[in-house]
């Protein structure tokens, strides 16, 4: 069994979010569809979700939570299950971006649920539940945009 810290599990998400932000910047700069470009400004905020969840913690508490040990590694393969990065930045449609973003949020939700299957202390559990809530709220916003046919 490979013990891993919660910090490492969160860093994987952070690293992928960095790649997503670069992809969204490419769409913003290459797309000729200004509606799609507006959407990238919204989607690029996703990279701050972890920070948002950490807002309720002070610096010391963040360090402690990050050091919490998780009994088993939890695989993180968003590119396989939510292949947002494979789209062409210049031609991707708003609908495709929104649907891929919903799929990515659902994947993140499952990832966080899998982390919660292991025993964690109260702060770590609170943090992961906060992240799940943030993703759920974001999914509601995205689905609203899909329903309203904004893009």
């Amino acid at each position, binding site marked *: 069994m490979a013990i891993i810290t919660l910090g490492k599990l969160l860093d994987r998400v952070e690293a992928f979010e960095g790649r997503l932000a670069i992809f969204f*910047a490419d769409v913003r700069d290459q797309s000729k569809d*200004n*509606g799609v*470009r*507006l959407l990238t*400004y919204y989607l*690029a905020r996703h990279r701050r979700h972890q920070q948002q969840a950490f807002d309720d913690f002070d610096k010391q508490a963040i360090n402690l939570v990050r050091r919490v040990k998780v009994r088993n590694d939890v695989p993180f393969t968003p590119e396989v299950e939510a292949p947002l990065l494979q789209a062409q930045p210049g031609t991707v449609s708003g609908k495709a971006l929104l649907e891929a973003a919903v799929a990515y949020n659902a994947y993140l939700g499952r990832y966080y649920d899998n982390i919660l299957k292991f025993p964690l202390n109260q702060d770590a559990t609170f943090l992961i539940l906060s992240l799940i809530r943030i993703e759920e709220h974001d999914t509601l*916003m995205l689905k*609203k945009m899909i329903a309203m046919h904004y893009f």
Partner: protein
Amino acid sequence: MARIIIVDDDVEFAEDLSKSLQQAGYDVEVKNRIEGLIEDIVLNRPDLLILDVMFPDNPVAGFDVARAVRLKEEIKSIPIILLTAVNQEHSMDFSARDIDPEWLPVQDLEEKPVAKAKLLKKISKLLQPTVKK
């Protein structure tokens, strides 16, 4: 006297805001179009920009202009306030929390309608360190 450029395609709103700022002692210029705006800013070097976000045919024009200003050496330090109704049109919850150097490099983001007293306070604060009225 500090100079402010208001950029907004809503002519009535921009003129109304302009009057309020002039009454508060500012030198104000109104632009209703984005075309040629960066060149204009370089030429006129205002002390502050108040930018709408959504323009006809480009719902992110204000965001684009803010980023373009930061890339231009001569004008990159001009403070920018985004004044927008983008959330009313698209339910995207943009707010001052979204300000960052890469995507929204501005000093403030306010939703329309904004209380003039609140806006004047923010303008005064942004202009304080460099320009005295």
